[in-house]
């Protein structure tokens, strides 16, 4: 008995001792706990945000973006449209790959050409869909010939990662093992397993600003509670996507710092404006043939019944901001003229009565419950707000796996979903959501509401052909204003993102695309 007790005591002490020893990390190392990691080390595999974020450490893109998603030079130092269907990119000189070879225009051409062959279901061809062919002019000049006029080609190329043309025809396995993971980025690939840790080491020959941290480990911890616990226990130095409930607690915890910023994601309500709804509306319990959402007064009434301040402060617990358009107003093509959305319940009821629904109507309302923080909570809050205006809106929060196929199949009458303008400009958003659904033109791919406005369509198509930045911006601003006034979609709130780190250890500028990049994180001067 005594022997066993001593043995147990000795074992426990040994364990405690070994863990405290291993907890002493080198001061120049950084361990980040991230919610999601890459699906492959091949940068052309997927368009997912977590993929781009992870691989921006190892590879560079042709065109970069600053923290507000506006374009800045990266591998390409300048870009101009030399005629209606050709863009010229000047390539930066003196950039070296991790294996020591020089980056030339040949590598850029190779990168663009390989995308259709190697990309996966989140297909990167949406960024190269306007590319017809790529021509190498000289070692540092590339001409991209486009199908028709592609005014937003530079925006599409902010996720165009450049790989070395010497890797040949390889796929995910060769990249994951490290054999082909040769980039030009601030960090070099050391090891990775699907869903495992991404281990990186600093690239001492980086062409840009050298990173501070020598060894970086990105641990994938998808469970929110575990990720927060990992930070609190000291396992990791920084975590992303802190849940709202933990944010509130962390603000009072002096051992942790929090960083908060707007994201690109906005929760939008989409009303189905087709002649016949998939699930009909009901008035006083009986189904009606017509679609109440077709009437602009009804859509405006529903908009006026939404109290966006309550959504931000109470439902999202402070991690939201009222939105009045589908993307941040400072993005290319956004409007600073649009008014802040009002909350006016009396006017909402008056408009409904005017439109012929004095007793309101009943509709089903679908949303996701696992895609963006607060999506289900906002959905339920909205249905309660509409109840105050006399409408019976039945909220139904669904798992994304069920929601998206049903939405694609056009099964919803009214739904809430998040949209992030990841290219920083209007045509990506309004072209997909507001333009008439036209598969041949590749526009309106995500327009499931049946909305079709020839005036807006014409403006969007003209914008795609206009190479002059100012003229194009004016056209897109018009599109924004017209579609928002017509309540094609009703934006509710901008989601904010929170990061947390150990107090007074590091600092960084939070980005609107929510990316956590080790090369942009600096230690706090002691």
């Amino acid at each position, binding site marked *: 008995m005594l022997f066993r007790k001593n043995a147990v005591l000795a074992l426990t002490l040994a364990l405690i001792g070994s863990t405290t020893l291993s907890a002493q990390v080198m001061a120049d190392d950084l361990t980040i706990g991230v919610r999601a990691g890459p699906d492959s080390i091949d940068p052309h595999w997927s368009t997912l945000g977590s993929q781009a974020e992870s691989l921006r450490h190892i590879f560079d893109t042709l065109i970069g973006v600053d923290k507000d998603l506006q374009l800045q030079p990266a591998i390409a130092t300048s870009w101009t449209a030399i005629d209606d269907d050709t863009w010229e990119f000047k390539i930066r000189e003196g950039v070296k790959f991790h294996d020591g070879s020089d980056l030339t225009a040949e590598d850029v051409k190779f990168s663009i050409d390989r995308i259709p062959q190697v990309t996966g279901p989140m297909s990167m061809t949406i960024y190269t869909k306007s590319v017809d062919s790529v021509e190498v002019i000289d070692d540092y000049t590339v001409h991209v010939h486009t199908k028709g006029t592609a005014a937003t080609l530079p925006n599409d190329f902010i996720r165009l990662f450049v790989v070395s043309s010497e890797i040949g025809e390889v796929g995910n396995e060769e990249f994951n093992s490290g054999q082909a993971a040769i980039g030009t980025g601030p960090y070099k690939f050391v090891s990775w397993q699907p869903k495992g840790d991404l281990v990186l080491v600093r690239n001492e020959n980086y062409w840009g600003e050298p990173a501070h941290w020598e060894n970086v480990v990105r641990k994938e911890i998808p469970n929110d509670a575990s990720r927060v616990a*990992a930070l609190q226990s000291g396992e990791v130095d920084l975590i992303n996507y802190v849940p709202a409930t933990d944010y509130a607690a962390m603000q009072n915890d002096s051992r942790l710092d929090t960083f908060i910023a707007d994201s690109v994601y906005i929760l939008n309500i989409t009303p189905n404006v087709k002649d016949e709804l998939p699930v009909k509306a009901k008035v006083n319990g009986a189904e009606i043939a017509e679609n109440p959402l077709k009437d602009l007064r009804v859509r405006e009434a529903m908009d006026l019944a939404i109290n966006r301040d309550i959504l931000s402060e109470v439902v999202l617990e402070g991690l939201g901001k009222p939105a009045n358009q589908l993307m941040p107003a400072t993005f290319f093509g956004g409007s600073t003229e649009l008014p802040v959305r009002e909350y006016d319940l009396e006017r909402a009821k008056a408009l409904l009565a005017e439109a012929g629904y004095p007793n309101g109507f009943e509709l089903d309302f679908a949303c996701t419950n696992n895609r963006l923080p607060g999506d289900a909570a906002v959905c339920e809050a909205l249905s309660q707000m509409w109840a105050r205006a006399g409408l019976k809106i039945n909220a139904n929060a669904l798992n994304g796996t069920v929601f998206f196929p049903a939405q694609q199949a056009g099964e919803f009458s009214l739904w809430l979903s998040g949209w992030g303008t990841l290219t920083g400009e209007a045509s*990506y958003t309004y072209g997909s959501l507001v333009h008439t659904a036209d598969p041949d033109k590749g526009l309106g791919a995500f327009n499931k509401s049946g909305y079709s406005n020839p005036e807006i369509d014409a403006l969007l198509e003209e914008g795609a052909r206009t190479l002059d930045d100012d003229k194009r911006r004016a056209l897109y601003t018009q599109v924004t204003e017209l579609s928002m006034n017509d309540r094609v979609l009703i934006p509710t709130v901008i989601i904010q993102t929170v990061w947390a780190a150990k107090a007074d250890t590091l600092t960084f500028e939070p980005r609107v695309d929510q990316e956590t990049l080790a090369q942009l994180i600096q230690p706090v001067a002691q």
Partner: protein
Amino acid sequence: MGFFIQRIFQAAIVVVVMSILVFIGVYAIGNPIDVMIDPASTQEIRDNLIRQYGFDRPLYEQYFVFVGNVLQGDFGQSFVYRVPVLDLIFSRLPATFELALGAILMAAIVGIPLGIWAGYRPRAASSKAIMALSILGFSLPTFWVGLLLVLTFAVQLHWLPSGGRGPTSDLLGVPFSFFTPEGWSYIILPAFNLALFNMGLLIRLARAGTIEAMSSDYVRFARAQGLKESKVVGLHVLKNISIPIVTVFGLEFGSTLAFAVVTETIFNWPGVGKLIIDSIMVLDRPVMVAYLILVVLLFVLINLVVDLLYGILDPRIRARRSA
């Protein structure tokens, strides 16, 4: 020999039925394309991907293509990662195996002696305490206990790490982490979390068996013979109560190994559970089918071993079989 062949035949049937169910099930939830593909893709991209993955073919044709490939040893590539499915699963299986083994051993080493004690002295205060704890063991939800363990031991006390797996070294080419004390510090909490349910079960089983055995004839005769009490309990009683315990042990090992998702998620253990739940969410059919087939084979193997153990533990079964 006929015994083995019969088992293998049964296993094959279950595997076929399982694979058909998964194919139909995935299809019933929705087209994987709608979940996997970027919603902003054009129709052209969607059509290309549908053709590439074979989703434009009727379901039974997709199934036969799959069967044809499996018979050649190719379980296909994951839709999400585009790496061979078997490589993906086997890269994470050792971690789950290690965790499940640790959990079940912990449950057995702690649970069986406690249960025997509770059965040996059923009216003692300690026995009553053991029984109360066993109820907690299988009624408390795993995720809640797991979070409590992390909060207490990792965040508050800083005694143990909050998640992940320790450093590994290879045994027969397979990486395991139980060789170093540091590795153990990572295994303890998740293994304990997983072990609780099984511990509760084994305590109650052992107690019930012991109570029954203690009133039996052979115990009375063994005592009359003058055997030490520790020999009576530790040898004779133990052997006689072991049949149900071994059965449960086998079943629980199988289900712990196959479905340790919750614990693996909370403790960020790099096992196969997290891989599976994510594959189900995105309808990554090749991974789902391959994994479930492996689970079926695992249960068949475990049942086979348990049956063989019956023969070893109980000579009466051995005799009946060869008769």
